[in-house]
């Protein structure tokens, strides 16, 4: 039963893999449709909680899928979701990068990279804004964002300290 379910999980996520431009976050609505509406693997509230939980864990945010897989079919489900979500896009990226490697210094590649760079910067600023808007639920949280950003820009403090201090302030209920 569990292995059949895990296989189904793998297939569902594999179908989203090549659509996941920008990582796991961009397919969250589609994931919600498949997980909550089509398969009834979790309720809508559980889905949001899992998305939040995965955000708080370290690592690529696309790994939210393994948490959903875990909910559906424990460890086999988590592995199935992880491989289903990562394998198709990773194989594509592998093939593309072998092709790209030989052309990286060609005129068209350089033009493409030059045209992508400002868009990438704008998107990074946008993620910073959106993450701040999501995390800044209180004055305390905004202060933590601001002080961490300033410390990271102008001091040599190791960023893990910022994370640890943030965690302690959160535990103390100040964030």
């Amino acid at each position, binding site marked *: 039963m569990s292995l059949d379910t895990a296989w189904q999980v793998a297939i569902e996520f594999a179908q989203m893999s090549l659509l996941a431009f920008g990582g796991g976050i961009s397919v969250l609505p589609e994931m919600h449709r498949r997980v909550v509406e089509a398969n009834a693997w979790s309720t809508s509230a559980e889905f949001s909680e899992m998305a939040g939980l995965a955000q708080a*864990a*370290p690592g690529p945010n696309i790994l939210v899928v393994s948490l959903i897989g875990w909910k559906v079919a424990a460890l086999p489900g988590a592995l199935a979701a992880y491989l289903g979500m990562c394998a198709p896009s990773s194989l594509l990226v592998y093939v593309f990068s072998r092709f790209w490697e030989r052309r990286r210094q060609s005129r068209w590649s350089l033009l493409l990279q030059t045209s992508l760079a400002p868009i990438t910067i704008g998107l990074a600023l946008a993620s910073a804004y959106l993450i701040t808007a999501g995390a800044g639920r209180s004055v305390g949280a905004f202060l933590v964002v601001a002080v961490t950003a300033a410390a990271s820009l102008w001091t040599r403090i190791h960023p893990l300290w*910022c994370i640890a201090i943030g965690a302690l302030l959160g535990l103390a209920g100040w964030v």
Partner: protein
Amino acid sequence: MNIAPKELFVAFFRIGVQGFGGVLPWARRVLVEERHWFGEEEFLDAWSVAQVLPGGNIINLSISFGARCAGPAGAAAAFFGLTLAPLLIICALGAIYVRFGELPQVGRVFGGVSAAGAGLMVATSLRMAASPRMRSPLAVFAVAAFALTVIVRWPLLLVLAVLVPFSFFLVWWRAR
């Protein structure tokens, strides 16, 4: 550049396991500042290419950089180095969550961690915006990408589909 799969594994492991609240700041720190495997501008280019392909940006970067350094073994080492520890951590969280539901203390700690993670992301994005490439008319595309994402709330694919052709045309036209 030749980098052994083992070294790739270790570097990407550190990015994955430390990467709270967005992996970009940690990727830049480990790959640019600590290992010097990328220059600032080179990292921007690699991140850009990773961004226009499907899949998580950092996952794509691990695969393409790993492949460039050590072929299939390098790609696998970087990919599993990056994802293995976070996968285990998430499974552990999942097990706890399924067993106990949400604990209020855990929620508060996560709130603090995400706020600090957001601060790191703000700093990293500002560092990227300090790139010399922003001192050109092309900077208008950074402003457009930001506004379309934050204000108009377009999904990434639409932002790319609309902006990349214009940007590419302008670059090509200026380079003629």
